[in-house]
């Protein structure tokens, strides 16, 4: 009889690969593995029923993506040694910016660790530039966000979101590190070194696998309640948002500018921005405005601005926020000029 831990470890990997299979199946065969509940015309339902039929549609359509995303999140949290990875970008060099942007999507799945890691990057050598690159890249282009952008909107939009966030995060880190107040932040923290745990517990593959199941559960508990409430709220936008309003304000150059800005005060919980973008696209939002929206809001989130303001001061926070919105709009304009469609 295998032990409880062996069973849990096997379960973790079975769930991960089953989720991957459910996500990959329609990509290969062109038809979903399980039937998808379709609601037809959303505005014809009783308003009380709208959020329920909307959620039912997404649950039947995207449960595989949810399963895969949350399990992968758990595996990343349990298997990736964060301290070791941040060590790779702890020097003052151009390479640190690049690695911070590259590793950010897998460094934090849970927002618990965002700000401590951010502070750690500043204090332990790389300075404010790569720290900001990490802070901007993680929410806008982590694997959860990219996977759902690809599943719900299109793989092209997912690639544009990742690529734009990558370039923007590095650019802003670079620019802020050159400002006087950016450099002043670094001086404030000179001489701090990262504390190391007295005894590092070595875990074997099985223990890590069990932990990934626990981490996945923690992630579900953190993300899912807000996500369900958020998507229920989005259902009303999809059902009742006047098409002519969206057509007037969220298309063309004005659409790109508004798209880059409105996400900031809107502050949508993790992943809800993707569902909201999908609803607005249904109502006629231009893809270029959608890209600006998918970049601006997540990069410049108010809670993380408040969180890091204690460490880097409001002047630096406002500098990166303004640059973030500006570059999100620039990415939208580039998309409008060269790509256009979804």
């Amino acid at each position: 009889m295998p032990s409880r831990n062996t069973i849990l470890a096997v379960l973790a990997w079975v769930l991960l690969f089953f989720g991957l299979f459910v996500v990959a199946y329609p990509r290969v065969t062109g038809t979903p593995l399980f039937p998808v509940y379709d609601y037809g015309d959303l505005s014809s339902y009783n308003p009380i029923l709208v959020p329920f039929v909307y959620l039912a549609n997404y649950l039947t359509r995207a449960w595989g993506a949810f399963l895969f995303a949350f399990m992968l999140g758990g595996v990343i949290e349990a298997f990736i040694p964060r301290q070791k990875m941040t060590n790779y970008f702890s020097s003052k060099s151009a390479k640190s910016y690049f690695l911070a942007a590259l590793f950010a999507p897998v460094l934090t799945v849970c927002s618990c660790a965002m700000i401590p890691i951010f502070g750690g990057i500043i204090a332990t050598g790389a300075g404010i530039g790569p720290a900001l690159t990490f802070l901007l890249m993680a929410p806008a282009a982590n694997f959860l966000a990219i996977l759902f952008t690809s599943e719900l909107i299109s793989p092209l939009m997912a690639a544009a979101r990742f690529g734009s966030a990558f370039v923007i995060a590095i650019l802003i880190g670079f620019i802020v590190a050159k400002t006087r107040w950016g450099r002043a932040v670094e001086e404030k923290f000179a001489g701090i070194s990262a504390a190391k745990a007295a005894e590092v517990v070595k875990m074997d593959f099985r223990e890590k696998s069990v932990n990934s199941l626990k981490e996945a559960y923690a992630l579900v508990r953190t993300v899912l309640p807000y996500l369900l409430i958020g998507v229920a709220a989005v259902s009303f936008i999809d059902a009742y948002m006047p098409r002519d309003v969206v057509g007037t304000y969220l298309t063309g150059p004005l659409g790109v500018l508004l798209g880059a800005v409105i996400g900031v005060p809107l502050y949508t919980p993790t992943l809800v921005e993707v569902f909201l973008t999908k609803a607005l696209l249904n109502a006629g939002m231009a893809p270029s405005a959608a890209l600006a929206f998918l970049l601006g809001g997540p990069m410049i989130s108010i809670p993380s601005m408040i969180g890091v303001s204690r460490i880097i001061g409001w002047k630096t926070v406002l500098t990166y926020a303004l640059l973030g919105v500006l570059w999100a709009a620039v990415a939208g304009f580039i998309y409008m000029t060269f790509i256009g469609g979804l």
Partner: protein
Amino acid sequence: MVKIEVFGVGCPKCKKTEENCKQAVKELGIKAEVTHVYDQMEMLKRGITDNPSVVIDGKLVVSGRVPEVQEIKKWLSVRK
């Protein structure tokens, strides 16, 4: 009197860490004070660069994951 500090930002994992610490103290029946540090500046000054983290009597014992009650009990009994 043992001083246990949990560093976190109020996320479920950080809360679970605090619960586990309290549980370990209860099971061992020792005198200990468990505090939860939320302040990011304080964290950074102490060199804490990941969450959740636990410091026992000024020594960092775990960083970046939720420790089990058993583990915490071991750390607490080693230093007694």
